[in-house]
């Protein structure tokens, strides 16, 4: 057993952190936040591509670097720390993973475009309020053409290629659809986290092709849950650091607020949550990398713990800062917004708790 990142991975982390400190200061995040017309920071995206980040886990024959999912976890954590306003998760954890898991040879050719930064992905599942369910799904493929409205779609404005969940014959499956097709209409929707892209996409007879079997979407979301958990932990740890620093400097009643137990215990709880989330995420990373059949429970546990940790840290981070924390200028609300964005991006924590229980039931049945 060796339950931590390796030395090489720590090295990768240091490089990533230095790179992001230089290229993704808070001004970059605010640039997207404050400009409703921008879906993401294109310069940062180009720089990430140039660093080989979109190519990291892709196979070498498709222009990738052939590195492991645990390496990708390292990058995810660093991207989460700095609130990077880029469609990385949609492109790398979702689209690229789907292509690698289930793509036909022709479909896998798209991986080259991802490696080279010519392709941005998104996954389109939701169609309105409530958790999507296969029974209620309206999007449909008829005669090889996709019809329906997806609302909302994370990174739906920036993306060039979408994974779309739709009815096809008697099945509910993911499909690949080219978003530059004229039959596609898309528009930004106002969102809780304007530093990230959110779209409404209407498909009106869009050419598409199925990818994978009916089970792909769940297997894909399990994998993405682990990677996104690392983004959440990166953000949650940043909230903790900022709050601790502030609590040491800010005085009230003649002493640092950090010497008051109400603040101290809040920050201790934040630390505990973050550690719990980190440990669950490490197990998720191991299950992902090793192909363990415990991945469904490990991924769901990682997600439930990370959602809880980030939300608590973001929420109580503002509280720790007092009035200044409630201003637009302070960075606390950027985490508050991002925590919510990551909470809801691949199914809510509410849905994932249920999913965790189901996964544990399946595991228990296996054991008996």
């Amino acid at each position: 057993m060796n339950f931590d990142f390796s030395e090489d991975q720590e090295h990768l982390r240091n490089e990533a952190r230095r790179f992001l400190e230089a290229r993704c200061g808070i001004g970059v995040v605010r640039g997207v936040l404050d400009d409703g017309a921008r879906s993401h920071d294109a310069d940062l995206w180009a720089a990430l591509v140039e660093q080989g980040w979109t190519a990291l886990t892709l196979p070498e024959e498709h222009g990738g670097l052939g590195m492991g999912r645990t390496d990708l976890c390292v990058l995810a954590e660093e991207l989460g720390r700095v609130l990077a306003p880029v469609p990385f998760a949609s492109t790398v954890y979702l689209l690229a993973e789907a292509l690698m898991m289930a793509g036909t040879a022709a479909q896998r050719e798209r991986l080259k475009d991802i490696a080279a930064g010519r392709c941005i992905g998104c996954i389109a599942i939701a169609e309105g309020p409530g958790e999507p369910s296969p029974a209620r799904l309206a999007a449909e493929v008829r005669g090889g053409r996709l019809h329906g409205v997806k609302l909302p779609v994370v990174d739906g404005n920036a993306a060039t290629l979408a994974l779309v969940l739709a009815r096809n014959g008697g099945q509910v499956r993911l499909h690949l659809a080219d978003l530059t097709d004229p039959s596609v209409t898309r528009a930004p929707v106002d969102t809780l986290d304007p530093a990230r892209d959110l779209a409404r996409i209407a498909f009106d007879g869009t050419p598409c092709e199925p990818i994978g079997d009916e089970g792909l979407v769940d297997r894909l979301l399990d994998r993405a849950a682990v990677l996104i958990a690392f983004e959440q932990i990166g953000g949650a740890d940043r909230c903790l650091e900022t709050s601790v620093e502030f609590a040491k400097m800010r005085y009230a009643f003649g002493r640092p607020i950090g010497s008051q137990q109400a603040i101290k215990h809040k920050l201790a709880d934040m630390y505990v949550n973050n550690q719990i989330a980190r440990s669950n995420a490490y197990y998720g990373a191991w299950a992902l990398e090793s192909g363990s059949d415990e991945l469904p429970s490990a991924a769901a546990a990682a997600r439930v713990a990370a959602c809880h940790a980030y939300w608590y840290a973001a929420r109580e981070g503002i509280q720790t800062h007092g009035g200044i924390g409630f201003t637009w200028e302070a960075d606390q609300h950027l985490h508050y917004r991002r925590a919510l964005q990551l909470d809801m991006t691949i199914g809510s924590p509410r849905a994932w708790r249920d999913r965790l229980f189901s996964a544990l039931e399946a595991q228990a049945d296996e054991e008996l």
Partner: protein
Amino acid sequence: MDFSDTPEEAAYRARAAAFLDAHAADLPRPTGGEMDRLAVARRWQAIKADHGYACITWPREWGGAGGTAMEQVIFRQEEARRGVPIAFFGIGLGLCLPTVIRYAPAEQRERFVGPAIRGEQVWCQLFSEPAAGSDLAGVRTRAVRDGDDWILNGQKLWTSGAHYSDYGLLIARTDPDLPKHKGLTMFWVDLKAPGIEIRPIHQMSGGVEFNEVFFNDVRISDAQRLGEVGEGWKVAIFALMNERVEGGKDRGLPAARIIAIARATPAGDATLADDGAFRAAFADGYVRMRGVSLTRYRTLTAMSRGQTPGPEASIGKLVMASELQELSRRLIEAQGAYGLIDDEALSMADGTVHHDLLHAPGIRIAGGTDEILRNIIAERVLGLPAEPRVDKDIPFSQAPKGI
């Protein structure tokens, strides 16, 4: 990131499993009266000592196996899988003996270590008092010098296992005119010494696991002192550091057992396993309990890389105790009025859940309360400033005192 056994670990696990299976008839069980369980545990401890499975991480010269922390964990996993409870020797071997080994002269080490490892002698921790729990440095039990001896007077409280222990590690005040942390000294005592009276305390869970221990003019030799006069606080910190690494062990039923209970518990027209509120609450608790176990593997990895575990190990008990409390309450609540029945024959999992619910409050207090653990995390891990203290720099005899 590798969670599976290395080839060496797998080989060790196989050896441990073979040893345990060969001794299946000797394995302790969690049932029966205390004295019967103690007798079985002593025998089992001696068998383990003969085969290098007692005190696995201790150096061979002290009767250990010179093994790694990981090996200890593997052995314990295999023991737990076979239903062997942890009992009786944890405080002695986890906390008292490491302190004896570190601070006692050679001939005392020879005298105590072997019998303790073999379960022949049991040790207890005589730290807490009526007026000194969280604020341990407030102990008032006095040790007064008399030639080559010391005379002890005072009262210890909440001493787990004193009623079956042979020896105890005792912290006493040797100089009340110094500030409170400075006037303390550590000793070991023989609980059979004249003047010691042990009275069991009936605890809220119904059992009698801890005691009050009175000292009336108890004469002990200066050779029983551990560390310098006035250095008792430092020695206590050393002892407690060992305790925290032990803390946060897995508690409660495994997930598969709980799911089986939930499926067998009616809820509305379906079962508790179909109930959204229960599923969600269980999931939240599960990730926290699981997170604690997994955090321990991170600590082990850090140790195997040569780092010393720090106060961050305190999160284990803090999280586990509350989650155990809430989970058992939730399972019992779901039984409806039937949940009121606390009877091994009638209650789910042979009464384990009811047992856990009634023990959880004690776990949240013993060995550092929830609040103290949060203070420790905030101050020692996060580096937040300590609270102002009114009694730190004045003579202990003049410090404010309450009940």
